């Protein structure tokens, strides 16, 4: 499935805002909410991504124009998995009484989602591509 390249960037911006708020208020419930959002996108696919759907709604209501380009959904979806693992790990750490580690992991996700939102650089997507290359190299040799 091909997706509008703006979708993941908008989702990343919302994610960043949610996680910064969670961190500043040390709100585990808000963090848990974001982990759940990651889980939906990661497990059910980007079509079900809550923020992605908000973006699609915005496109219907506002004159945002057609997608400047489209990209395959595999990379961004893998990034949702990475977000789920890191933010989820942070949530577990916070719940287990290790808030330093927990919120530290949240800040990692804050950094990477800000990076994607502002520059369009998707680190998760790069990892995914590297993984595919490694697998194909293994198959070729």
């Amino acid at each position, binding site marked *: 499935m091909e997706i509008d*390249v703006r979708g993941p960037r908008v989702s990343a911006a919302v994610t960043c805002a949610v996680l*910064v708020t969670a*961190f*500043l208020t040390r709100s585990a419930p808000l963090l848990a909410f974001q982990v759940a959002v990651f889980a939906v996108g990661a497990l059910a696919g980007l079509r079900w991504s809550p923020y992605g759907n908000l973006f699609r709604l915005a496109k219907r209501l506002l004159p945002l124009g057609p997608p400047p*380009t*489209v*990209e*395959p959904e*595999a*990379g*961004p979806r*893998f990034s949702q998995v990475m977000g789920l693992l890191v933010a989820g790990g942070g949530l577990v750490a916070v719940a287990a009484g290790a808030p330093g580690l927990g919120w530290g992991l949240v*800040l990692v996700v*804050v*950094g*990477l989602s*800000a*990076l994607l939102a*502002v*520059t*369009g*650089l*998707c680190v998760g*997507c*790069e990892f*995914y*591509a590297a993984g*595919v*290359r490694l697998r*194909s*190299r293994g*198959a*070729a*040799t």
Partner: protein
Amino acid sequence: MTDLALVAAVLAVAVGGGLLLRRRGGHVVAPAGAPALDAGTRALVAARLAHRWRGAVLLQVTAPGCATCVAARRVLDEVAAGAGAAVLAIDAAEVPVLVSQQRILRAPTTLVLDGVRVRGRVAGVPDAAQLRELVGRLL
């Protein structure tokens, strides 16, 4: 460090680092000695381009799930159109010898070919001006 300062620092490092990486990614470098393509890749390019392979070729090595490949391709098409060069995109999986010989680590990596010699390489989205300048010197 106060929370706000910490958040600001994380954002600054992440976004700043990203912008820096993006700029470094666009640089066109000329590999020493203008290495020649391996036989396998040569055959593949010849087969795909056929009569279009006359002068400079912008060979883009791609990988599935590579989002920047699309943006990079637009720059390549633009530069090639202006210079009369050909553009060819190839998946890294199809050219494992090329990938290892040229030590291609990132998708997209674009090789600027002059005949069968690699005259330039760019990782990520190329700097259009630099690319145009290199291609112009070749044609």
